């Protein structure tokens, strides 16, 4: 246990009082580094593992710091009274947490040892052994499925989806964690009823899925691309309308047979 808490990793933010990602009031630890390069990514500063400088409101800001599990848990533990009263806890996000498997596992395990419930937002894009070693310490897996078509998936995110879909099955079958599927609804990529229905159908196949979330595209990340000196490839694409989201929600409900919701 002692050694575990000294495990080091790289994060770019810790956000307390998050109330829309998982149960209750949560603290989100954002791990740096990702395997994908989604065009709509709202945290582009999360993608590269290296420590970067990003311009924020005209001032350079260093993104990324190396910390120990102990240090992260010091902050996470501060909101324990709120977790206790709301069923909240710690959520790992990113980036893709599985890019730092030792660190992610040590964080999750440390939180569980402290009596804090855990969740992880992830694409499941890693070797199964890595995921398997994490599951004993994970209460909620918030798994992204972005598209069922491998080619389109690769075109928009940089990677094909076979491994992730395969892992989704294994996670569901393991019975070790509560699995929810999260779908970012991106105009021009997957915002047709047909595409959402395909993901929902896969969700049904997985069985053991608690919930399906449709997360409408937003433009929160736009300024960050400029801050990193990158081009925002989404152009001026607008977020999906309420009506469209409602229609997609209906489609998802019908095809998945699980509880569906818009938002986290």
């Amino acid at each position, binding site marked *: 246990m002692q050694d575990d808490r000294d495990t080091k990793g790289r994060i770019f933010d810790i*956000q*307390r*009082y*998050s*109330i*829309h*990602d998982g149960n*209750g*009031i949560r603290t989100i630890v954002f791990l740096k580094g990702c395997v994908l390069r989604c065009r709509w990514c709202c945290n582009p500063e999360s993608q590269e593992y290296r420590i970067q400088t990003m311009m924020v409101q005209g001032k350079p800001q260093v993104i990324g710091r190396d910390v120990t599990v102990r240090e992260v848990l010091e902050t996470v533990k*501060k*909101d324990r*009274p*709120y977790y*206790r*009263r*709301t069923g*909240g806890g710690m959520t790992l996000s990113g980036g893709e947490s599985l890019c730092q498997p030792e660190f992610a596992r040590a964080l999750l395990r440390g939180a569980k040892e402290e009596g804090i419930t855990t969740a992880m937002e992830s694409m499941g894009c890693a070797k199964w052994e890595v995921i398997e070693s994490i599951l004993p310490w994970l209460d909620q897996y918030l798994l992204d499925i972005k598209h069922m078509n491998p080619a389109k998936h690769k075109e928009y995110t940089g990677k094909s989806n076979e491994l992730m879909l395969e892992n989704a099955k294994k996670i569901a079958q393991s019975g070790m964690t509560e699995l929810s599927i999260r779908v970012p609804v991106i105009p021009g990529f997957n915002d047709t009823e047909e595409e959402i229905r395909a993901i929902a159908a896969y969700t049904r196949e997985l069985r053991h899925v608690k919930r399906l*979330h449709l*997360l*409408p595209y*937003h*433009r*929160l990340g*736009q*300024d960050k691309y400029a801050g990193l000196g990158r081009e925002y490839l989404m152009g001026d694409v607008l*977020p999906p309308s309420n009506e469209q989201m409602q229609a997609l929600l209906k489609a998802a409900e019908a095809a998945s047979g699980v509880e569906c919701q*818009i*938002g*986290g």
Partner: protein
Amino acid sequence: MGLYTYDSRDIPKTDRIPKLVEHLYAKLPEIESARAVLITESYRQTENEPMVIRRAKAFRHILENIPIIIRDLELIVGSTTIAPRGCQTYPEFSYEWLEAEFDTVETRSADPFYISEQTKRELKEADAYWKGKTTSELATAYMEPETLTAMEHNMFTPGNYFYNGVGHVTVKYEEVLAIGFSGIRRKAEEELRSLSLGDGDYQKRSRFLQAVMISCDAAVTYARRYAKLALSEAEKCQDPARKQELLVIAQNCANVPEKGAEGFYEACQSFWFVQQLLQIESSGHSISPGRFDQYMYPYYKKDLDSGRITREFAQELMDCVWVKLNDLNKCRDAASAEGFAGYSLFQNLIAGGQNAEGIDVTNDLSFMCIQASMHVFLPQPSFSIRVWNGSPHEFLVKAAELTRTGIGLPAYYNDEVIIPSLVSRGLTLQDAREYNIIGCVEPQKAGKTEGWHDAAFFNMCRPLELVFTNGLDTGVQVGPKTGHVEDMKSFEEFYDAYKKQMDYAISLLVNADNAIDMAHAERCPLPFLSSMVDDCMKRGRTVQEGGAIYNFTGPQGFGVANMADSLYAVKKLIYEEKKITMKELKGALLTNYGKGLDIEDVAAVTANIARDMQEEGQTVGNREIAAILESVAAASRSQEAKANGERILELIEEVPKFGNDLPEVDAFARDVAYTYTRPLQNYRNPRGGIFQAGLYPVSANVPLGAQTGATPDGRLAHTPVADGVSPSAGKDVNGPTAAANSVSRLDHYIASNGTLFNQKFHPSALSGRKGLENFVGLIRAYFDQKGSHMQFNVVSRETLLDAQKHPEQYKHLVVRVAGYSALFTTLSKSLQDDIIRRTEQGF
């Protein structure tokens, strides 16, 4: 498990309620003269009688003659003025300020009132009698010169009771509901009979009891006038439904408050007469209904069980009571109006909580109180919720729904802190468990307490300013000489100097409050109020003369966060890290961090320098003063001052601040709060009670901040001081849980007169059932950590626009963006605009 099962279902609003509200708010409230004229008539005729009898006779004279009105569609009647939301005046407390403001009171920015030329004439005529006879004049005579000096120099302001009645009480409504004023009168008669003519205190006691009897009769007379009026209006009424309503009103007013209430409707009417008449007797605000859901419940339950009433009609009656609470009004002087902005009377009504045995007593009416605030949607009553481990979850969720509307109600109170806190002040455990809240945040036991809550505003920043000037303010020695600040060798020495300045100012505050207390006892004893507070009848004394069982004086300090941050910055930057010298900091404060001084500030600084020079034996004439003035003005505008100020501000910015969940800083803040709360509790008041501190500002942190120079926390001169125990605006940057954790590390038990913690949320943070659940969890978790009070601004579009203009003040504002939340000020302008647009659509 609670004592009662309850029905939490929503009840719809009737058409009557919006019509009553509309009528009430149709025009600017008006000042009327009837009370002032009548009390003056009565006083002229009773010159040689004991004061308590004079008060009772005046009360009777007013109630026999003051014009009365039944407003259209009212079910609960009793109006203090003919004009809706109007106010009477109370020259026996003070009157000069109103005459001085006759021509501006209608156009002033805070709480304007219409006043007719005729009213002005009548008031002037009545006021002429009161010269030399008011409580404020007598209070001044009781104050020491140094106390008056300290007040002139804005160290504190006891303005509330200095110029007005005290109010701030909750009476035994339940006794009036049970036995009526005929029953209370009988008790007074019995007491009177038990006295012996030869008793040493016979004169005092007998005259008080006679005054109670006169007051009880007066209240009954007043209700009968309403019964008669209702009957005559019924006779004229063409609408059969309204006619029937008027007949019922007539019957109600014939029965109560003379007799005990027969059912819920009569109980509501009886309650209302008590509430209204208390305010006619004296001009005090914060006369608080308290545990309405408890003392009304037996009447409701009995009627409901016997089929005499429906939940829907009971709700409508409560809604009518809520509307009436907004019909009462009070005109304050212009400066006080800014400190109590919003025409507020702070009539605090509280629902939920425990009974004397420690069992939860949330009931149907507790839910219906929340419903009434949703239906009426007006500032009164100041609605509060008691929270403890045994509070039903559904109850808190329903309360959170009200919070979500953005009305700023209810405020939430923590039984787990307040009960032991009151016990530590001498209340029995049983009494403490039955506490309610007075005014803003002040807990007490109803019907047994004269709490003198809200006794003054004490600005904790001003003593620190005096540390930098060796006790001088505008050339006057206002505080003790604590030495030249540049010579202080250690932080301990500096902190000791602050404590000495605090101790001295606190002693003067006590002197001021006790002087005012004496004046009220001598000139404005209140027999009607005292007939409903234990143990006045047995002791034969009014509450003003120490008749209540529990006696306190609770002046409130504010600026805890500013002082914590200031002293911590001094400790770190000057004594530990030695990044700046005391001389540099003093220079920066004098020049307002190089941001320039207004002409009054320049004059104030000049006066201090001149005084220092004189004390050193130099002659300072007009020429010297002019020269100093010129050099101070030049220095404050100089490039050097500007650069110096900016550099120091940047260094201060980097010092950790209270409100960010940093245990070391928070522990420091806890200690700083003790510089006010600890010395204060050693003082006693003339009623035999002790002083107890509150830490809350009402809205005075803004106007009194305007009287405060720059402080070492980086706060610029004349800007607002932190409100209550909340962190300084914009200094808490780690979100609401971090701020709450920090605030919970203050000692809320010792501030037994109440603490106030404000948080701001966007409505979206409370959206959906899940939002409400998380919100309730946030309150519970703060209370688990022994915070005492919490209230919420669920912010509007206007606030979001303001947040765009002044992002530094809104660093902790959480907004829902899409499927997630974010700190508003971190978003891009275009996204902010987007959210504001969406807010308009009510997403």
